């Protein structure tokens, strides 16, 4: 083969390889054994009755130089009870319990029925399914799996039109030690993104139903 053609082939192979490398999250490799991971996640989900933790949310807007940082607590109880509470720098509470969503901020309280509000229903499903690990079986997302020493990383890209308008992708970081979510990143179509880090996680501690009660 002529030298130039050979060089051309080597070059295109090189660029081809770097293109693949760039489409992977930095520091992560593709997880090939997704079956074992999914089984472990499923097993953990079955054994999980409650989860509670603190969270720190970091919102990154391209128009702002600083990030907007908010903090709060998160609680989950089987089957689909969720409590998401911001405590800093403002008070804001979301409770999801069966088909009802309750939101309370400084000014007022609002209740919604997920059955009559498609968007809430989809968000609720996504959160509950993420916590339960079922989201990996969902046909609503294109899913890619990666890993590094600390985490399994699952990248979800919504396929349905409603979600796509709000969310370009969501990345879930599962702690390799206990298969709980330590971090998640939500990226909007515009490129703005939100990071949420979960700390002080307690699994299967007693949580009263009262915490999820919607009057």
């Amino acid at each position: 083969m002529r030298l130039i053609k050979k060089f051309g082939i080597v070059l295109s192979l090189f660029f081809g390889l770097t293109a693949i490398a760039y489409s992977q999250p930095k520091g992560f490799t593709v997880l090939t054994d997704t079956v074992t991971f999914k089984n472990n996640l499923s097993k953990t989900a079955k054994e999980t009755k409650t989860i509670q933790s603190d969270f720190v949310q970091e919102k990154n807007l391209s128009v702002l130089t600083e990030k907007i940082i908010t903090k709060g607590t998160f609680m989950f109880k089987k089957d689909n009870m969720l409590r998401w509470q911001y405590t800093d720098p403002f008070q804001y509470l979301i409770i999801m319990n069966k088909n009802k969503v309750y939101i309370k901020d400084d000014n007022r309280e609002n209740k919604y029925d997920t059955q009559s509000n498609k968007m809430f229903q989809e968000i609720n499903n996504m959160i509950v399914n993420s916590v339960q690990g079922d989201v990996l079986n969902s046909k609503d997302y294109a899913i890619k799996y990666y890993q590094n020493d600390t985490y399994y990383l699952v990248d979800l890209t919504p396929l349905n039109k409603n979600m796509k308008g709000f969310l370009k992708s969501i990345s879930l970081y599962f702690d390799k030690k206990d298969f709980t979510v330590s971090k998640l990143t939500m990226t909007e179509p515009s490129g703005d993104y939100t990071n949420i880090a979960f700390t002080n996680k307690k699994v299967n501690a007693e949580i009263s139903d009262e915490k999820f009660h919607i009057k």
Partner: protein
Amino acid sequence: MAGTGEDRRPLKAGELVSLFKSDSGAFIYKTAVDVYGRYLSGLLIIKNTDPDVYRLVFTTEVGVKLFDFELGPGDFFKVHHVIDQMNKKVVLNLLRDDFRLLLMNPLIASEAAVSRDAGYVIYRLRGKKEENAYFYNLEDGLLSRIVTTYGKKSKVKVEIVFSDYAGNVPSTIVLDHQNIKLSIKMSLLKR
């Protein structure tokens, strides 16, 4: 009527300057919008990006961006992003006009009738169909409210009240429409 007589003259430099004119970062307000029975809440971020150019971004508490507007200089208005449910000309024009009023950018006229009355210095600017009145406290020079009126009987269209000042920045802002069911309450989160 009490008060001094009217003095209509061109505005001087340093008069009716936007409260949000700043080189040092964005203003973030916890904001609640009541519009025709619907309730929307989140964070309104106001950033003075260039001289007489402002970027306004509204995200929900959870971090979903509802709109991202650019206003100024002059009549320039660009929608960088808006969710489908709000992407209607009526809604966008309404928000654009209210934000122009809040940002005092652009002003509807370059001259004003200036008067004093009941503890205020009042600047009245006459536009094509409306008049905007800016009430500054005589005592501390801070902007207390902006009132837009229209028609022969000077009916109030919208009023913005500024209070709880922290230095030169109002911690509380309430924008209330009289002509339609729209009110916006803002509470300063950080500077």
